[in-house]
């Protein structure tokens, strides 16, 4: 019995590495489950590191140090926070609607995590490729507002209710401009011989591959304007600064989650950050070429492919170098001994990952369909997709540090009187230009 598994397991994994379709398309529930688990773990880790990065980056924007005590440069702070939140008392107000109060964070969390089924990290690196991919993503992420609204109502308190009202009005308004911007990008997918577009997330990236251009540069400046509208609307959709009216701490204490504490509160935070990653990946898929590496058309050929395939390894090498510089700059005092060892071990781990990635890049440089080159390709796809998403995540922090919060009437004016007409105009002009080109 163990013998059989020993033979069968590697074969099974190898057969998967050679596949060119998503598990959903192949009807393989086993691999779909594995993908779901990987994505769930990955998103949770990403949210934790985003939490750390946000606190650090905001602190540096404001000339502070940020978390420094727990672990070297506060690296273990998210873990300490998570432990603290889990151990905290979970308070439900007596006057609250118990059941609705209990279910509200789960609605938000479910909506935020369900959309990950269709996010294409690569041509076969998605749980499933739905025919209605982008429609599904917009629909399910619009359910997230229900969690916010219901939480504000169930708390049976003034500030949460006002926060929930603001949030629902804001999300419903910005969804319109967002949807129109998305439609103008989908129109661009129909510029092929057949003249039919697609709503599937993988299909949208494939269309950009075929046309050899990211949609942000298509029909310049139409694609760019649509992208900018989406980039503004997605900040409003995720309730982030400068559009964080729903949780404006100077006006509403904490907005819709004022009455929440402990684990339930952390579920709201998890949902918010997961939703941020999800909308960023919509933007990356629609306008920034998804898993495509930059300059596919300008710098093509095997040698350029090889140079670009070195990037993942070099990134990790850079991170390892930063960790080692941190070790060298650590004060020479016995208090810092454990931190020093820990940071050195972390740097060593990053360096090891970098080495593995570089070995795969060099071993898998041939164009054949061997496992090594397939693996190399997959790493490239996932790396470029995640890098683009990471840029967006950094932008979210940057916006928060830079811009003051909008007033509510200003927010509504921008949504309905600026973004909506522009996105309608862009949609119409894109359609006309598309017909003229085709």
């Amino acid at each position, binding site marked *: 019995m163990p013998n059989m598994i020993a033979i069968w397991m590697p074969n099974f994994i190898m057969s998967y590495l050679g596949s060119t379709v998503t598990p959903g398309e192949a009807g393989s*529930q086993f691999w779909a489950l594995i993908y779901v688990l990987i994505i769930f773990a990955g998103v949770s880790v990403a949210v934790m590191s985003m939490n750390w990065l946000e606190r650090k980056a905001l602190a540096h924007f404001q000339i502070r140090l940020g978390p420094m005590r727990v672990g070297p440069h506060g690296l273990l702070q998210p873990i300490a926070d998570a432990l603290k939140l889990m151990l905290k008392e979970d308070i439900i107000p007596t006057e609250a609607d118990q059941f609705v109060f209990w279910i509200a964070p789960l609605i938000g969390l479910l909506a935020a995590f369900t959309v990950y089924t269709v996010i294409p990290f690569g041509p076969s690196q998605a749980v499933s490729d739905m025919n209605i991919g982008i429609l599904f993503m917009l*629909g399910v992420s619009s359910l997230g507002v229900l969690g916010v609204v219901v939480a504000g109502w169930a708390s049976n308190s003034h500030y949460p209710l006002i926060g929930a009202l603001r949030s629902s009005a804001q999300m419903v308004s910005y969804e319109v401009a967002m949807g129109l911007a998305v439609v103008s990008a989908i129109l661009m997918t129909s510029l092929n011989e057949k003249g039919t577009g697609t709503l599937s997330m993988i299909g949208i990236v494939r269309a950009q591959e075929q046309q050899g251009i990211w949609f942000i540069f298509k029909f310049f400046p139409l694609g760019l304007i649509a992208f900018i509208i989406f980039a503004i609307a997605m900040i409003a959709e995720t309730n982030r600064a400068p559009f964080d009216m729903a949780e404006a701490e100077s006006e509403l204490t904490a907005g819709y989650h004022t009455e929440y504490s402990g684990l339930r509160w952390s579920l709201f935070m998890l949902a918010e950050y997961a939703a941020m990653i999800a909308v960023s990946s919509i933007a990356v898929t629609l306008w920034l070429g998804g898993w495509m590496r930059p300059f596919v058309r300008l710098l093509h050929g095997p040698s350029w492919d090889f140079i670009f395939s070195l990037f993942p390894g070099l990134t990790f090498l850079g991170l390892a170098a930063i960790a080692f510089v941190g070790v060298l700059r650590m004060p020479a005092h016995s208090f810092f001994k454990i931190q020093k060892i820990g940071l050195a071990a972390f740097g060593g781990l990053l360096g090891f990952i970098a080495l593995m990635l570089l070995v795969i890049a060099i071993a898998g440089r041939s164009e054949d369909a061997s496992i090594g080159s397939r693996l190399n390709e997959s790493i490239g796809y996932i790396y470029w997709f995640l890098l683009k998403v990471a840029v967006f995540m950094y932008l979210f922090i940057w916006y928060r540090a830079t811009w003051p919060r909008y007033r509510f009437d200003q927010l509504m004016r921008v949504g309905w009187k600026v973004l909506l007409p522009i996105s309608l105009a862009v949609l119409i002009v894109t359609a006309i230009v598309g017909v003229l080109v085709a």
Partner: protein
Amino acid sequence: MNPAMNSALNSGLNSTAGMAPVAIPYFFYGLAALAVVSGFLVITRRNVVHSALALIVTLLSVAGLYLMLYAPFVAGVQIIVYAGGIMVLFLFVIMLVNIERSFKERRFNSMWPVALSAAGALFTLFVFAFAKGRALFPDRMMSLPESSNTQQIATMLYGDGGRIGPYTFAFEIASLLLLVAILGAVIMTKKKI
């Protein structure tokens, strides 16, 4: 090797034979039961927010039924328009209702007899339609190409290659109706045009 592993091995990623949908009857009964139970909750809860939440569950389970009927586009639109758009507006209004006061108020519109007879009449109509018009219903499940569903809807609504589709005219009339409704809403809220 246990059977689960075996089946996982057989449905390897490269096989295209695994396209058959999984566990159709169970999903149908589950979704239908969910829709009926939550639909019942919508009319029996005295707290309006609970009713609204139950209605959202009903709408979502109906979207699941559309998915099972190989109509993913309709399912997506159901979620985006009803569950995501209309229900949020519903909740927006309902949240401002004073629940405590509405509990104390006497119900003056108790219409159980009328509602029951109307529901009974509708049910009889369905039974008759199913019994008499058996030929109208397909005796097997249709297997439509799910991968081009949206494109086929587009062809029906907008036409294909210069030809007008069968529903183009009706579709445009419907959009005109919506435009009139939007204009009406604007005129009603504006004091001075």
